[in-house]
């Protein structure tokens, strides 16, 4: 054999082996790439929202509503009578989303969605604390923080379910709603539903990983990277909510 190429097996060179691209493991890199693709999907929905929203007249001028101490039993009908929900004007979010569980009839604009945002951000914090505990191989701490994250996620889902129920109860459907253009409620259900589906799958994944943590799977493996990967997904879900919240309720 006259000509043999000698591939260096010295670990210090690029072809020496033992190095992963970007210095992250395969699973983590793939999770990042998946999140990028999912970000595109959500972006396309939000872009569609932006376009449709701006093709309708803005919420009407006299939408400055001062908080009322007591509001009529049928708030929607009262607002309709006052001419504040006109079918070709995009509705003002603070007039539509002004309810709160167990507090009936009081005008609390955007209170509930703020609570939902806080719940999701807090569950993100507990998730990253679980990851951090995983770096120190503290099984019990990881398990506790993961449990808190699961509870936070479940709480968010419950809140979203309540929001949907109330909204549907006030007459919102995919084909129309009493507040404004038909796309308003349709877009709301599609985007929050798609996001809620991601939260749900995130909670399911978290439960599976939580049970694995309790079982000691990752102690045996020697690292808690699976917690990190699932944490990436959970933070992505929180990130999307930040933008959904910004676009649907603020813009």
């Amino acid at each position, binding site marked *: 054999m006259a000509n043999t190429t000698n591939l260096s097996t010295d670990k210090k060179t690029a072809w020496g082996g033992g*190095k*992963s691209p*970007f*210095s*992250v*493991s395969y699973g*983590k890199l793939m999770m*990042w790439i998946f*999140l*990028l693709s999912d*970000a*595109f999907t959500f*972006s396309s929905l*939000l*872009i*569609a929202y*932006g*376009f*449709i*929203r*701006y*093709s*309708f*007249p803005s*919420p009407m*001028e006299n*939408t*400055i509503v001062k908080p009322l101490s007591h509001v009529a039993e049928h708030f929607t009908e009262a607002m309709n009578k006052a001419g504040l929900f006109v079918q*070709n004007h995009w509705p003002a979010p*603070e007039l539509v989303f002004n309810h709160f569980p167990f507090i009936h009839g009081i005008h609390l*604009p*955007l209170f509930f969605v*703020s609570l939902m*945002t*806080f719940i999701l*951000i807090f569950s*993100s*914090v507990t*998730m*990253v*604390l679980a*990851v*951090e505990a995983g*770096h120190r191989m503290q099984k019990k701490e990881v398990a506790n923080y993961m449990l808190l994250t699961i509870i936070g996620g479940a709480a968010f889902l419950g809140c979203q379910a309540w929001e949907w129920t109330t909204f549907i109860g006030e007459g919102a459907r995919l084909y129309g709603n009493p507040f404004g253009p038909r796309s308003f409620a349709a877009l709301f259900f599609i985007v929050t539903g798609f996001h809620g589906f991601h939260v749900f799958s995130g909670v399911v994944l978290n439960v599976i990983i939580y049970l694995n943590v309790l079982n000691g799977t990752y102690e045996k*493996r*020697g*690292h808690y*990277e699976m917690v*990190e990967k699932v*944490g*990436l997904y959970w*933070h992505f879900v*929180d*990130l999307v909510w*930040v*933008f959904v919240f*910004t676009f649907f*309720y*603020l*813009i």
Partner: protein
Amino acid sequence: MEHMDHTEHLEHTETPADMKSKIWNTFWILLGLTIVDIALYFALLSTHSMLKNALFIVLGVVKAWYIVGIFMHMKFERKVLMYMIILPMIFVVFFIALMLIEGDFTYLLRW
């Protein structure tokens, strides 16, 4: 059959020592930014301008930076990974702005 328990060696980037305090700091920053968001919304209720929307989008992007950078550990990863994720998203922000403007034009066309 003997089951060999082996610990895998994984390639990973180092986490800073004060990670826990960074995490809680980020939480307070995110909470503060959300409160600013809502306060701004009610303060600017009567204005309808692209500038107001740009402000909310900027606030959202700042929050996103903290979530992606600290919670998702991006700030401590290799720069090239950061670029791989961030650069495509710039196109998305651009696209969102374009579609908001397109919506405006469609509105002028219709109404």
